[in-house]
């Protein structure tokens, strides 16, 4: 038996962390989630897989176009024409009440209901497969749904489909059907098809517990290769193999400017750092500055001039295989010397100042924006702000 495991398609989801870019680049970016899934369907047909599993987050409930929905249905129809069944469950982004009513999907698409259920199928070679899964009904799912998964069925294979995250033992964070690896292993299934985490990874080897990641990384934190898992049976076991499909790769490139004293030469230096490949790259440069770096360069980097110039230059070129979306300035940070005498006070002050409640207090009505609220809730934000603030304290002294 042979099947494809994918999840988190996030079709047509906007790409985060980008500012304006030329239309053709934008089109390329916009098309990438579609292309990635189309490539998966191509592979399913070429490989003549027995079925395709899609473990949630096909698209964002609140952010998807008719095009995305239409596209997905058409791809399912392609699979239908090739007699390849699709088993899909909805995740926290495309949560919905699943009813048995008519949907726009072709008949080969089997949607899991909001409660855990098991669907069975018999393959061409008479092998039987039980697939257990569920769909999100709401944005969050705090219950340990894993407890509702039944024991192993009397079939040749059993696969669990679970869109969720490893339990952090923290009620404030465990919003996505929290589970633990021993809980999964206890079910004695042959394969755990997970979804939700966008970085592909295998949590366990035998049986495989696999996050396929999103087929197309959608922001800077989803760098590296993206694709799907092709799972094949081999002497009674299911062996996953990662296949790359993402047409766009997010990269970070660290640059230590050597001799650049002018903006132009730095732009050239940055361009020289990029290795052009077939896949389109979205690039963030980390420019590492030293004490000896010229203050002009610092300034040009700091106020975004270099990025603008770089983008302008690329936008002018005929064919572009990469796009710089960000330049980060990395410089030695620390509190100003002035604080040395009062180090203990500053540290203590930092502890008392940089708190979640202070963030909320300060943000005030900014937090009414979901996207801001989400960012504000990021645990790493406090530390980031502290570093930012340190830079503020120090940086400004340079200007004086």
């Amino acid at each position, binding site marked *: 038996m042979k099947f494809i495991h994918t999840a988190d398609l996030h079709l047509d989801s906007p790409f985060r962390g980008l500012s304006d870019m030329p239309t053709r680049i934008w089109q390329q970016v916009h098309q990438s989630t579609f292309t990635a899934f189309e490539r998966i369907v191509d592979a399913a047909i070429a490989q003549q897989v027995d079925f395709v599993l899609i473990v949630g987050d096909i698209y964002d409930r609140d952010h998807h176009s008719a095009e995305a929905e239409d*596209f997905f249905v058409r791809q399912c129809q392609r699979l239908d024409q090739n007699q390849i069944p699709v088993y899909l469950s909805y995740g926290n982004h495309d949560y919905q009440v699943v009813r048995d009513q*008519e949907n726009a999907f072709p008949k080969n698409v089997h949607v899991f209901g909001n409660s855990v259920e098991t669907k069975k199928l018999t393959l061409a070679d008479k092998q039987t497969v039980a697939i257990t899964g569920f769909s999100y009904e709401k944005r969050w799912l705090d219950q340990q749904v894993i407890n509702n998964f039944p024991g192993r069925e009397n079939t040749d294979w059993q696969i669990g489909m679970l869109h969720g995250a490893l339990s952090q033992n923290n009620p404030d964070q465990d919003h996505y059907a929290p589970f633990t690896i021993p809980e999964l292993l206890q079910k004695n299934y042959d394969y755990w098809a997970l979804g939700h985490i966008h970085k592909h990874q295998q949590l366990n080897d035998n049986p495989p517990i696999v996050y396929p990641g999103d087929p197309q990384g959608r922001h800077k934190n989803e760098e590296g290769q993206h694709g799907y898992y092709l799972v094949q049976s081999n002497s009674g076991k299911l062996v996953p193999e990662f296949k790359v499909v993402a047409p766009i790769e997010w990269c970070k490139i660290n640059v230590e400017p050597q001799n650049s004293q002018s903006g132009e030469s730095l732009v050239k230096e940055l361009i020289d750092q990029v290795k052009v490949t077939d896949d389109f790259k979205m690039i963030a440069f980390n420019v590492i500055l030293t004490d000896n770096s010229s203050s002009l360069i610092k300034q040009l980097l700091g106020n975004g001039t270099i990025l603008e110039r770089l983008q302008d230059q690329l936008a002018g070129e005929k064919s572009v295989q990469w796009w710089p979306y960000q330049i980060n300035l990395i410089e030695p940070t620390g509190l100003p010397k*002035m604080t040395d005498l009062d180090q203990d006070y500053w540290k203590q002050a930092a502890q008392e*100042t940089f708190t979640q409640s202070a963030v909320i207090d300060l943000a005030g009505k900014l937090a009414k924006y979901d996207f801001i609220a989400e960012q504000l809730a990021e645990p790493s934000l406090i530390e980031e*702000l502290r570093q930012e603030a340190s830079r503020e304290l120090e940086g400004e002294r340079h200007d004086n």
Partner: protein
Amino acid sequence: MIIKKIHIDGFGKWHDQDFDFTNNPVIVYGANEAGKTTLASFVLSVLFGFADGRGKNKYQQYIPKDGASYGGSLTVIADNHQYVIKRVKGKNGGKVTITNEQGKKEKAAFLSTLLGPLDRELYQAIYSFNQSNILNDELDREQLEQQLQRLGAVGSQEWLKQIARLEKTADSLYKPRGRKLSLNRHLKEYDELRERVNQAQLQSGEYHRFAQEKAEKQSRLKQLRQNQPELKHQVEQMERLQRLWPVYEQWQSHQKETVAGVKLSDEKVIKVQKLQNREQELQKQITSLEQQLLEQQAIIKRFSRSELNNYRKQKAYYQQLKDQLLALQIQANGQSTGQQRSWQAELDQLAERYGNTKLPDPLSERALSKLEELLKTTSQEKNNQNLFIPGIGIVLFVIGLIIHQPLIWILGIIALCGAGGLWFKQQQQEKQQAEDHRSALRDFGEKYGLTAFPTNKWLTMQADLHRYHDLKIQLAQATKSKNDFEQQLAQIEQQLPIKMTVNSINELINSYNRWLIEMQDQSQQLTNAEQELSRTEKRVDQLKSQLTTVQGDKEGEYQQLEIKTDDDFKQLQAQRVTAQTKKVTTEAYAQQLTEKDREQLAQYDKHSLDDGVSQVHQQLAVNEREQTELETALAQLNVQINSLVQDGSFSELNQRLVNLQTIIWNETKQWLSERFAIRWINEALKLASQDRYPKILHQAERFFAVLTADRYQKIMVNDEGISVLNQQQQIFQVPELSLGTAEQLFISLRLGFVSVISDQIKLPVMVDDGFVNFDNVRRSRMLELLKRLASENQVIYFTANDQIKDLGATVIDLDKINKNKV
């Protein structure tokens, strides 16, 4: 750290100048333009670097106008060790060398161990007291209070400036109620964009609805299409039922008229018909036979004549006559005259042959035998030659020759010789015998009258003699027969039943024969007729008897059927046929109707069936109409869906929205970090102050008492701020103090801070005589204050007031130095 000595190579107006700071406090006097500020700047420049010539420091460089070498050195004592810090012209604030007591050079970084974390600004903020960092009128009292509260931290004033700057930049980015600020504008833009996205999302919802609708319609269409054949089938069925209705009606009515009481079974009909047929047949036969009877009687009557009756009576006799005639005829034929004449002719011929003489009678058998014997003996003698023995002899001789057997050929010769002897003897005997014979013959001829004829003809003429004799008898007999015949014929002719005129017996026989045949024939016919008649009569009797039986049987059947006549039966049969026809028709109808049809039709009457038909027609029409409608609707939906699908604006708007989110978040983060920086500074300052304030106050109270000539005894800090207590135990809040007193308080607190942090860092305090508001302070008190201060830190006091000299302290008089130089 204490500065012991200053050597200036060239700095501003000073060049190649030494100063020894032996006392503490160091009091430097000089009128305006005497070089106080330059000297102070030199100290700062050596410690913290030359000014870089940009911005506000542009005029702080003090590069010598006279071309003397820039820079100089300070000799300092720190931790009981002496170091010479020398700074000359160079990059980044000049080149520094530090030489220790042993004359060894320390690393450049050693400077920061001497100076701690301070830079020029911070040093000035803590240790430098001059007009620029002392309160002035413009400062509002609340800010003063704030400043005072934060005095406890290193560089508090500097930090306060930072706060002010950060607030300014933060406020330029965002204010909760702002409108034109960058982040505010972006948020507004975001709201608008999101509204548009929501509008577009509605489209997506619309798509969802359309898609849903499409799916539903497709499913409905599919259902309708699936139903359509069934409906068509129903229509066909109903129409069929409708078509069948007349048949059904017929069938039903026939069904009701199930013909009553037809007892007539097939067997019965066949039986009766058989009887009827038999009856008819019999009657027919009888009729036909009776006809025959009549005919036969007519025939019989026709033949009943005397002649025939006679014939029939005397038939045997007449036959006998015929036989007699025939016998007569045969007799007559035997005596035919022709034959008699031939016999006569032959007789004449024979007589002529032998010479018309009377011919002897033929020899008897015995005589003939004797003659033959006589004749025979003659011929035997000649023929009796035996060749047997010579034959054997020759054969033996030849064989003996052939086989060379002398015995044999000798035997042969012997045989030959024997034969020769035998033959000779025989010749002798024969001559004797021939003589005897000739005498016998002569005797014989005489006896039988044959002597007239040669001996050799005796034997041969015997046949003719016989013939001649016979012919004579025959001729005699024939004559006699002819007479008998004629006699007999006449006799017979008399007996014949009819008289016939004929010429010969043959004619007579023929005529009579004809008559006989005719009679016989007629008789036969009559007999036949008579036999036939009797047979027919018998048959008729039989038939009649049969007819009676058949009619009896028939009547029996009729009785059973309760009818009497054939007509009745015919009628009955007709009834039966009608019944059967009906039955067949019913069956024919029935064949057009299946069991199921009948069941179905039974549920309807004519009216409800018509209704049913129009109903299913309507259903089908509804189905087809709905299909058409659905197809049209689907086509429209597809157009709508396609226009939505191809409209990429939503994705674009969405991406723009997210891009804007990025911008907004970056700004938000920027703003937050600035706000946090402000909070952090405030908090750090507050913490430091809270911690140090008791000590600072302790020191400051002393300084404040000195400066105010003991008018104020106590400085207090609580949540409401700073307050002071005077001799009269009255409490004053800072805003209630005169500017001068507030300034004194400020100075006291700052000095208190310097003395408090002196356990961490001890640098010279530089006081520039610009205490404007100290005018009313006694110089003596000031000096007192400096002395107190000098117990912890080196104090360098720059003053332009020459009254200082009167106070008896050691003074470095710059005016004097300048005069000396000039």
